[in-house]
């Protein structure tokens, strides 16, 4: 640990110390709050008005850490604002709202109706759902995790996070990862254009040697073409009734414009055909495709017909090596994927629930007494294990010897732990440092039985956020 956020933060508040009757109990009133709004609680206008992405106050932190708020992380995207705060006293949400509204030059009253306030385990659960993209508009979309990581990095840069939020955010990242690997919540396409590209991949695999052709233009066709380009397709040809428009599109995709009259000739060059003309009659018929296939030596073709009425004769699908999906087929694929995502989301929620429970347990143990108990119990367990092993090795002994051994181990456990425990007690009376040393102790002796990967810190760069993984 080269850089300690606490050192930059205002360390102690002597005035508080004097007036507070039970200093060592102060931290126990600390509570996690999550105050925010999202696409369900607020309309676009409201979200724009209260977004915290590009305002100058953000540099110093919208919500300053100080007297009653000790840790803050702010996440702001186009769909949501989430402010996580750790503080004591019931006034925390009000203070956060005041700062938030003030940062955007608005009144608190304008903001309040759109805001939800979660406290304690509810806040934890909500954050975990957000991180695993269960709360997103499109469930399973992957951007939110990156945005949350950025938000956390910024908060660490401002030294606005400590023990609780550090662990909370790291847990949120690992929960998101668990959801990603253990459920299929993000594994299937949920837009029509993307579903078409996924299907193309099922047929062709690596896309780099294939060509696509757009027949006619339209928003969805262009979107599909963009997806195809992103997945590495070699070239996109455009055949449009008005050649100028075709040229324009071709330029956009760095492809080639084809005369509409030449369509049947040039069709044999394309592996993926996306058709969306306004024609009333089918423009591609099965018997035309038979010739095309002969010229192509039967290399497979994938037709995507997103026009209504349809551009491509449905009989085309009966030809070997030709696959035809029309708009209804694609819609069905998308709906199935959506349904699958919903099923998987239920699985993901139970993961979130479980991890939120674990976190609450940890939070509760972040107190002096449970930590001392855990510390002693750990030493005693090791001592008893070793005693059993030794007795097994040296064979049967008389009771007096056994008791002597027991007594010796007991004394060792007490004496070894004496100094750390007095140290903890002493530090705990200084409220600021209390939780931090408790946390360090818990991690140093692995009292929460986390499995820490060996390379947990290998990806660290300078400057480093405080990490508890």
């Amino acid at each position, binding site marked *: 640990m080269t850089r300690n956020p606490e050192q930059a933060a205002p360390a102690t508040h002597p005035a508080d110390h004097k007036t507070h009757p039970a200093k060592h109990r102060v931290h126990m009133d600390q509570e996690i709050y999550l105050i925010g709004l999202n696409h369900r609680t607020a309309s676009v206008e409201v979200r724009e008005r209260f977004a915290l992405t590009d305002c100058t106050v953000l540099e110093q932190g919208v919500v300053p850490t100080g007297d009653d708020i000790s840790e803050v992380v702010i996440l702001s995207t186009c769909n949501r604002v989430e402010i996580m705060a750790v503080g004591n006293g019931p006034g925390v949400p009000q203070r956060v709202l005041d700062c938030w509204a003030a940062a955007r030059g608005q009144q608190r009253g304008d903001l309040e109706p759109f805001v939800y306030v979660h406290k304690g385990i509810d806040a934890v659960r909500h954050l975990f759902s957000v991180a695993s993209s269960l709360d997103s508009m499109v469930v399973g979309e992957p951007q939110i995790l990156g945005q949350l990581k950025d938000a956390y990095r910024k908060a660490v840069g401002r030294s606005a996070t400590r023990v609780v939020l550090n662990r909370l955010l790291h847990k949120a990242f690992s929960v998101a990862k668990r959801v990603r690997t253990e459920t*299929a919540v993000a*594994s*299937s396409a949920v837009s029509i254009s993307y579903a078409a590209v996924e*299907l193309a*991949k*099922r*047929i*062709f*695999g*690596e896309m780099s040697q294939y060509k696509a052709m757009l027949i006619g233009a339209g928003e969805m066709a262009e979107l599909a073409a963009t997806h195809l380009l992103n997945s590495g397709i070699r070239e996109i040809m455009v055949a449009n009734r008005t050649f100028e428009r075709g040229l324009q599109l071709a330029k956009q995709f760095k492809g080639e414009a084809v005369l509409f009259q030449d369509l049947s000739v040039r069709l044999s060059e394309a592996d993926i055909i996306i058709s969306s003309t306004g024609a009333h009659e089918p423009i591609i018929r099965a018997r035309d495709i038979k010739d095309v296939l002969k010229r*192509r*030596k*039967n*290399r*497979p073709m994938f037709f995507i017909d997103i026009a209504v009425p349809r551009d491509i004769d449905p009989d085309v*699908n009966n030809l*070997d*090596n030709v*696959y035809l*999906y029309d708009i209804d*087929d694609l819609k*069905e*694929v998308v709906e*199935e994927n959506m349904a699958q995502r919903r099923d998987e989301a239920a699985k993901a929620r139970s993961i979130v629930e479980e991890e939120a429970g674990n976190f609450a347990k940890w939070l509760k143990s972040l107190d002096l007494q449970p930590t001392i108990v855990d510390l002693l119990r750990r030493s005693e367990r090791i001592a008893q294990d070793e005693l059993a092993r030794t007795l097994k090795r040296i064979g049967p002994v008389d009771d007096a010897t056994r008791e002597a051994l027991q007594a010796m181990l007991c004394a060792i456990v007490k004496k070894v732990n004496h100094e750390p425990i007095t140290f903890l007690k002493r530090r705990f009376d200084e409220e600021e440092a209390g939780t931090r040393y408790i946390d360090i102790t818990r991690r140093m002796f692995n009292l929460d039985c986390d499995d820490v990967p060996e390379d947990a810190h290998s990806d660290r760069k300078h400057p480093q956020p405080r990490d508890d993984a």
Partner: protein
Amino acid sequence: MSSLELLSIAIIMLYVLGTVCIAVGLLARRDRLKRLSHWLTVAGFVLHTLMLGLSMQGQTWQILEKAYYFRMLSWSLLLIYFFVWWRLRLEFLGLTASPVALVFYVSSFMLADVQSKLPPAMSGLFFGLHIGTLFLSFSLMTMACGAGLLFLYMDRKLKHKTRLSGFDRDLPALSAFDRVNHLAVMAGFPLFTLGMVSGFVWARIAWGKVLSWDPKEIVSLVVWCMFAVLFHQRLALGWRGRKTAVMAIWIFAVCVFSLLGVNFLMTTHHSFNPQ
């Protein structure tokens, strides 16, 4: 001999573990298990090669256990598998390779107790050429059959627009299956032809006649004709996909019949049964 037996048990264990790992890895969608299965299969293959080399020592071509025949077959199948895996980077081949290798290897033990003398005619260079090329092409057809079955399965799903399960998503694209078919046909047919020709030449030398109307020879000729049609259609007419997959499956089926059915049920001078 006991060291050979020990080796055999080790090989079986490795192939069994490889099969179990690939099955579990596929169902549970764990990549690590699949990779483990590949390593197990490779380890089994190394021991397998060692074992074949050891049991060859001090023996002549004339006295060979029939078990050897099958062990050699499973060995050449794996050889092809590793080659295709390396060339085309197709991991799914492990799906068919380790179970099939296991089946062949174990079945070689069921035959091991009957030790037969190969007819003295079966010796020399032609034996190696005849058996070696046919084994290699048979192994290629096994691959093509596996790929063909998967092709038909995926093709149906895509044509009928049925929902793709997680297992389907893990399979490679359709074009990959077709590439396996291509490779198997392009390499397999010349090898098969070479094997047939060497057999006939050898028969001419050994028995004085090219064709003795042996059941095995007839079935093999049928296979050759089917193979020739497939080869020609693929090369000249550009057949691809479903038709070639179906033909590869048929050719494999007839091959299996000629390998097992003819050898065990009919009287043939290709028989394993003591004459």
